[in-house]
């Protein structure tokens, strides 16, 4: 296997040198280039074995030979046939695209690479061409004239390359006159690739961890508890208050589930500290679970079945612990899954009750079937009912903008709740330009399992449109904090900001909320959640 060195990251002026002129050769004749820095490592043998997925072996995308299983063509074609019969979306999206091109410059990867195969329409065409060849009469008889082509190894490699250059952000589907959703095509494309063992390491690894240990990072129960307790130490230093969360506690009213990024690594842990402080201040009867310790779902980037297998833990654990309902933390794709898939896969959650906030009495009718609410819904309700005391001046050193995570905006419509919290917790809030927020928000460039390190160039490209909008408000208003509600954002944005707009920090909304949260019996706050001096609050800053 070829040893691939970690590639050097090009400078912004090199990356911004984007040529939008399509190549001279037709896309069917343009070979896929595997340029180091733009693709992820292949899935490891051990992870596929753990998950019971096909064709486990050591392989590298940089190699000529991908060690495909015998008869892989039949596997893929049968896989397409099966999915055509299972998903109306797939059939319709294969059939009705008119190639108007409205989606083209809506994709962050196209904007930042100029590679026409990153236009959603052409990314879909990579699969559509094979569908036409084997599943439509016009494609069978007219071949290339009808846009059809044979399936061969190069086509498969091209799929792998481009379906792992799509973050399933759904921005294209907002602009498509027929609502064709490239995320759906990518999801199915990745399922097909997984039938022959073609996943990426950064997805298969976390999925295997999550399956066996409960979370993507593979944190074992004692370490999970340890991590949270060390956050409690920091909270005590800052506020003088000892927060005592519980773990796997039966009979709690609420189960809290958040992505594992929130309890390992900065700045995610500050958001997590925010949850802990808020719940303590409310005296909320809730528990963490070490078994269902992952809100995110990297199975969703593998196949719907894999996603369901990981997601099943949440309801199972809620049932085992006997809680009444569930709160979910800040995370992007997690909420696409919780909102649009969980109930269908693993419901009905008839052993749970419709969520009612014990603090305000608000009944969350919008979650009456799933029995799971988003933490920003919970917190916005508290603020509206004035149940928590906030001192937004503690965030006065911050000029905050807000990044709508792709999936909560386009797969849910959670737009106002986080803004309401930010406006209550911060005095300086500025929106990015209209075409880059809410349902038109731009992806961080690292979603859907692409936040590895070996593809850093591609991540800096993919996040370019987002970063460029941040830079706009940085220059115009002096914005220095990018708030968000997604663990991958918190993991991916620091590098992206350093690269495109240095000086902008990254925070979850509950970090900023907890900065402002006035807790009963707290010592005067002189530091923020990061342990940095609060200017004008008696600290040294």
């Amino acid at each position, binding site marked *: 296997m070829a040893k691939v060195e970690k590639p050097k990251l090009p400078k*912004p002026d090199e990356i*911004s040198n984007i040529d939008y002129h399509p190549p001279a050769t037709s896309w069917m004749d343009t070979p896929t280039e595997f340029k180091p820095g733009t693709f992820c490592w292949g899935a490891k043998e051990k992870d596929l074995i753990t998950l019971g997925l096909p064709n486990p072996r050591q392989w590298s995308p940089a190699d000529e030979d991908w060690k495909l299983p015998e008869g892989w063509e039949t596997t893929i074609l049968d896989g397409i046939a099966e999915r055509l019969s299972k998903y109306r979306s797939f059939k319709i999206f294969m059939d009705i695209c008119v190639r108007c091109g409205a989606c083209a410059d809506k994709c962050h990867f196209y904007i930042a690479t100029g590679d*026409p195969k990153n236009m959603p329409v052409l990314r879909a065409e990579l699969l559509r061409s094979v569908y036409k060849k084997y599943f439509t009469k016009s494609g069978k008889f007219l071949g290339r004239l009808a846009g059809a082509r044979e399936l061969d190894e190069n086509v498969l490699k091209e799929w792998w390359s481009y379906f792992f250059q799509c973050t399933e952000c759904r921005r294209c589907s907002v602009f498509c*006159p027929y609502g064709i959703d490239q995320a759906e095509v990518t999801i199915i494309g990745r399922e097909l690739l997984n039938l022959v063992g073609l996943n990426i390491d950064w997805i298969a690894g976390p999925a295997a961890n999550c399956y066996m240990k409960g979370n993507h990072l593979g944190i*074992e129960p004692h370490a999970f*508890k340890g991590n949270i307790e060390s956050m409690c130490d920091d909270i005590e230093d800052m506020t003088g208050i000892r927060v005592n969360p519980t773990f796997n506690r039966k009979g709690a009213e609420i189960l809290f589930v958040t992505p594992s990024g929130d309890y390992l690594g900065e700045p995610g842990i500050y958001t997590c500290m925010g949850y802990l402080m808020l719940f303590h201040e409310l005296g909320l009867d809730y528990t963490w679970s070490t078994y269902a310790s992952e809100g995110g779902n990297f199975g969703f980037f593998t196949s719907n079945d894999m996603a369901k297998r990981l997601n099943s833990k949440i309801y199972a654990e809620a049932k085992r612990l006997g809680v009444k309902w569930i709160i979910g933390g800040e995370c992007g794709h997690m909420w696409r899954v919780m909102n649009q898939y969980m109930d*269908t896969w693993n419901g*009905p959650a008839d052993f749970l009750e419709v969520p009612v906030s014990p603090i305000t009495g608000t009944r969350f009718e919008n979650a009456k079937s799933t029995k799971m609410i988003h933490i920003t819904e919970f917190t916005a309700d508290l603020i509206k009912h004035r149940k928590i005391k906030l001192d937004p001046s503690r965030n006065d050193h911050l000029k905050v903008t807000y990044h709508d995570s792709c999936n909560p905006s386009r797969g849910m419509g959670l737009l106002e709740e986080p803004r309401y919290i930010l406006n209550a917790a911060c005095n300086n809030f500025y929106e990015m330009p209209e075409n880059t927020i809410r349902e038109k928000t731009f992806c961080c460039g690292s979603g859907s399992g692409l936040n590895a390190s070996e593809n850093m160039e591609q991540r800096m490209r993919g996040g370019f449109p987002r970063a460029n909008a941040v830079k706009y408000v940085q220059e115009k208003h002096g914005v220095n904090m990018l708030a968000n509600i997604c663990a991958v954002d918190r993991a991916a944005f620091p590098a992206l900001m350093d690269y495109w707009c240095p000086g902008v920090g990254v925070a979850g909304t509950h970090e900023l909320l907890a900065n402002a949260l006035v807790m009963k019996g707290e010592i005067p706050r002189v530091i923020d959640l990061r342990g940095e001096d609060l200017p004008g609050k008696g600290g040294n800053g």
Partner: protein
Amino acid sequence: MKALLSFLAVIVLILIATLGVNVANLHFFFGIIIPYLAFIMFVGGFVYRVIKWGRSPVPYRIPTTCGQQKSLPWIKQNKIENPSTALGVIVRMALEILFFRSLFRNTKMELNDVGTNSPKLSYGSAKWLWFGSLVFHWSFLIIIVRHLRFFIEPVPYVLQIVDSIDGMLQIGLPPIYLTDLFFLLAVTYLFLRRIAIPQVKYISLAADYFPLFMIMSIGVSGMLMRYFYRVDIIAVKELALGLVQLHPTIPAGIGAIFYVHLFLICTLFAYFPTSKLMHMGGIFLSPTRNMICNNRMVRHINPWNHAVEVHSYAEYEDEFREKMKKAGIPVDKE
């Protein structure tokens, strides 16, 4: 090349009809057999395609939400772009189908300061595609409605009104229809953007040019017939009525250009169900648009939802029991 091939295909079709009628005298074939055949292929093909789509279930409720969800009572929901009721979905779909709502959002990205450390992206308004498509589809629809006067006797009052509004310019004799002009302009625009915008040209297939040329030639042949090479309109109506009433006749003296027009229409109808033109039916079934965004309120059922292998809590505890006990985490089995 792809455009040229499609263009040639349309020329060949025109030649076939011209020669077939003028040289081979196949009026019966082109005036009766082909229209019936095309009609059967269109209706049969359309129904077949829709049934084929309908046979695949919608396993997940996956609307693309383009506005604020229904959550807390004091947060204003966008009831159309994120509809939580059937009525909301109907309005959303109506806006989509009648006014191309999503295409109206279109923007054009521009990158400035390329190759510097601070490149600048901007997104300008781009409504031409929306406008051109809207004009094209609506003109097309009105033209089809206008044509009903050939198939109905007496011509209903509504059709007469449509006719007179469409001809309100009162220029020429017979008066020029507004929709004829709009239609020709719009279809030309749609063709030109396909070859003028490099990205759109790059993604275009022969299957994208062919219908455009077909539609263009149908329009042109129709207009030639109306404004320049007049055909016997009474005879045309006789033929049309005969077809509808299943007493087909071939009245004498209809010019060959009519048969060209008719043959192109028939070809387009027959071709329709096998092509991307099925977006006409597909848009109604698009799951990202036609579903109610009540995901957390009402459980969506997946008919093929099957059991999957899971890693149970018991298995998990078996692996980590000692570590959990040591850390003071409660366990089920001591």
